[in-house]
């Protein structure tokens, strides 16, 4: 097995890495680049804790080879805020208590972010279907749905 060069952009920052091609995207993000906001909760593409955004679409970074993200724009939870200012979803999650242990929160936020880009005026049911791929064991989801709904309604403006 020979290592491969990998170029990708994470949260606007370009990275040039040298990796074993079997390395998963989540491993590159957490272990190679050191952005530990993105979590892992299973080995079966089930829980969504590792959700990140690649070129505007949400994906589960535990089920993608890092080399498949070659040349792409990756966004993680760390990329939501801009110079210390929280993104609307982050503020809304705070206000609605949309997290408890917080372990699913980064994935939940990234899924919601991508979802709202696709569907800026969703119904409650659409939001629920949107985040169906993310397990939260603490909140029972409704507070997350309320938070996403509030952002869609425009209650939270980005700076």
């Amino acid at each position, binding site marked *: 097995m020979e290592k491969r060069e990998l170029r990708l952009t994470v949260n606007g920052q370009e990275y040039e890495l040298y990796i074993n091609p079997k390395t998963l995207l989540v491993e590159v993000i*957490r272990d190679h680049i050191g*952005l*530990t*906001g*993105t*979590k*892992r*909760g*299973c*080995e*079966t593409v*089930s*829980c969504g*804790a590792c959700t990140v955004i690649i070129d505007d679409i949400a994906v589960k970074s535990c089920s993608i080879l890092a080399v498949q993200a070659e040349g792409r724009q990756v966004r*993680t*939870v*760390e990329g*939501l*805020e801009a110079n210390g200012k*929280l993104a609307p979803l*982050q503020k809304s*999650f*705070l*206000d*609605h*208590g949309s*997290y*408890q*242990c*917080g*372990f*699913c*929160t*980064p994935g939940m*936020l990234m899924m919601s972010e991508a979802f709202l880009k696709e569907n800026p005026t969703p119904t409650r049911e659409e*939001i*629920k*279907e949107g*985040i*169906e791929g*993310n*397990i*939260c*064991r*603490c*909140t*029972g*989801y*409704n*507070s*997350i*749905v309320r938070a996403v709904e509030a952002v869609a309604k425009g209650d939270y403006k980005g700076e």
Partner: protein
Amino acid sequence: MTINKYSVINTHVHNVDGIAKVTGRATYTFDVKLPGMLYGKILRSPHPHAKILNIDYSKALQLPGVIGVVTGKDTLGVKQGIWRRFQDLCDEQMLTVEKVRYIGEPVAAVAALTEEIAEQALDLIDVEYEVLPSVFEPLDAIKKEAPEIHEGFERNINVTRHIEWGDVEAAFEEADYIREDWFKCGGQAHMCMETRAAVSSYTPDGKLTVYHSTQAPYYMQTLLAGVLGLKEGNIRVISHYVGGGFGGKFELDGAIFCSAVLSMKLYRPVKIVFTREEEFIATKRRTPMSYYVRTGVKKDGTFCAREAKVFTNGGAYTGMGATALYLTGFFHSFPYRWTGYRYDGYRVYTNTLPSSAMRGFGAPQAMWCSEQQIEWIAADLGLDPIEMRRKNAHYPGYEVPGQASIASCGIDQCFDVIQKWVKDKGKLPGNRAIGISAAGFMSGGIFNWFDTPYSFSSAVVTINYDGTVELYVGAQDIGQGSNTTLAIICAETLGVKIGDIKVHSGDTEHCPADLGAWGSRQTLMAGNAVKMAAEDAKKQLLEIAYAQSGFNIVYDLDIKNRWVHAIDRPERGYDYAELVQKAIRGKEGQRIVGRGYYTPHRKGMISPAYSYMLQGVEVEIDKETGKIKLVDSLTAHDCGQPINRLGLMGQLEGAFSMAAGYGYLEYMPYEDGKLMNPNLVDYKVIRATEMPEVSVAEIDTYEPEGPYGAKEAGEGLTNPTAAAISNAIFHALGVQMKECPIRPEMIVNALKEKETKEREKK
């Protein structure tokens, strides 16, 4: 609409660690990386019951990158358990020496440069087993011919509990109607999003530092000291952010023990993180139970007597199972008054995953059986199930004979709320029905089987020169929001802003001992300790204020919203920071330090206070497929004075989702001791699309034993929900489901059975 007399309590307060959690800054044990850190993996038993004849790991050691291997022989072989006062019940070697008792039990652990190498090394360890006969079901395990799982435990009976009050036989005599039922309750996985994880670092000075995803750092420190032969004081447990606990993370686990043993052998930090599969097969689970219930009532629905015989599947070890066994027996009587009540509980060892504490702690099983049978009795007698429950319910001042004294109890108002909800729903479509269920729960246990010499909860408050406050608590925030709740209590008591409080928790080096986050104890117990500590500090400030004010002695001074003032002359006052500065100068530069502690005394057998609640659920059922869909729900809930409004709501919604999962989704099938669905593809949990709206009606009561009148919230609601769902099924289809979780196939079969019976009748 009652106006809130408090300035912080029950207001809209963001979680104190909210920013860290919504920005990905919160660092969990899962994220910890230390210099020179090695990665550990655990070799697990493939057999449910076997003697270990020999372990040969020489080949593993030869694999490049493998730094060390440990087996039971490298340990002190201490049989440990959390019931430290009862040596018999300390029965688990975290790295077994002679024999394995369940599939997945650790037999060896490897430390290597990478997780991958460690995993490869596991395949190079040869373990020679002598496979022993095994037994998986309690009722098989008590048979004479059953194999002995633990030496000296005849018929594999691990613990027995007996609760009885009143003259049970006489009380049954008074009954006009007696009903008997047999129930079977399944297990449930805690399924914390953060799997068990630990990073241990042992250094040549004989000190061990452990990062661990735990509900109780103090327990870990003490238990580790016992199994590793170290002084408690030489062990530091750090656990700042925990990815969920739900009762699964306050006993030693393979991750913390094996990483510690490896680190002590190698003098390097070792990290072990469980895979999701390990989390399913080798941690602990909710206790499966089989219930026999006999209940006698009068024609008018007055409860006379109840007798319950319960066998619980203990799995291979005791864990917290003995407590679950007692609590299920006690809460099976809840929240009702019985002239005569008798409970015999038997916890039986089997060769399966140990069962232990899980949110609700035996009560969900108890309520699932009790609340269904009560619903059926009401139907049998043609009585209104809500009124029948109300008539027999606890009330403020009621004494559960020999067990508990009830101070605050708002269940009567809960009945009103639910009754109105049901009435307003009106007539429902044929495929829908409403089920209700009552419940109550404790606010922390009074029992001290852990044998701690410390008070159950402690807190220290120190005030800085600028008026900011350092709050040190041993209470543990595992996501339930205790740090926020305690900060609120501290701010309210001191009369400062929530932003003035910095909470320090999850570090045994800096925080006072506390039994930790389980049994719904922290709001009441840690809350009382924090209130006391804050009052202590405030008293020291006000002493100075009096000396300064020159007020007539009859005036009382107070601090509110950082404003020091005479209560009768709120306009006349000054800034709190100013007072703090004077006070510190007045104390020769000493910081203001307040101390508080709490240990329950003379509070009966179980808990200082009890929450009460009613759960209503509207369920839609596809009669052809048996598919269950939750449509709507209402929770009427008495937790005394709400402290942390956002946190309370979140806890109730969360408890609902977990309890609903227990009712119809979360299923742990075993074959020959092997869990058949140890992954999130086959083990289903509630997802956003399955969650109905959850409306909550908070019933305000005042619990004299609790801080500002607060008591349990968040765990208790795990108790009624499953029964509410099955009661809805009963009303929609007229079938009685006696096994949970209720899977669609069971509903279809029950309907078939019902039809055949009806045909036979004709």
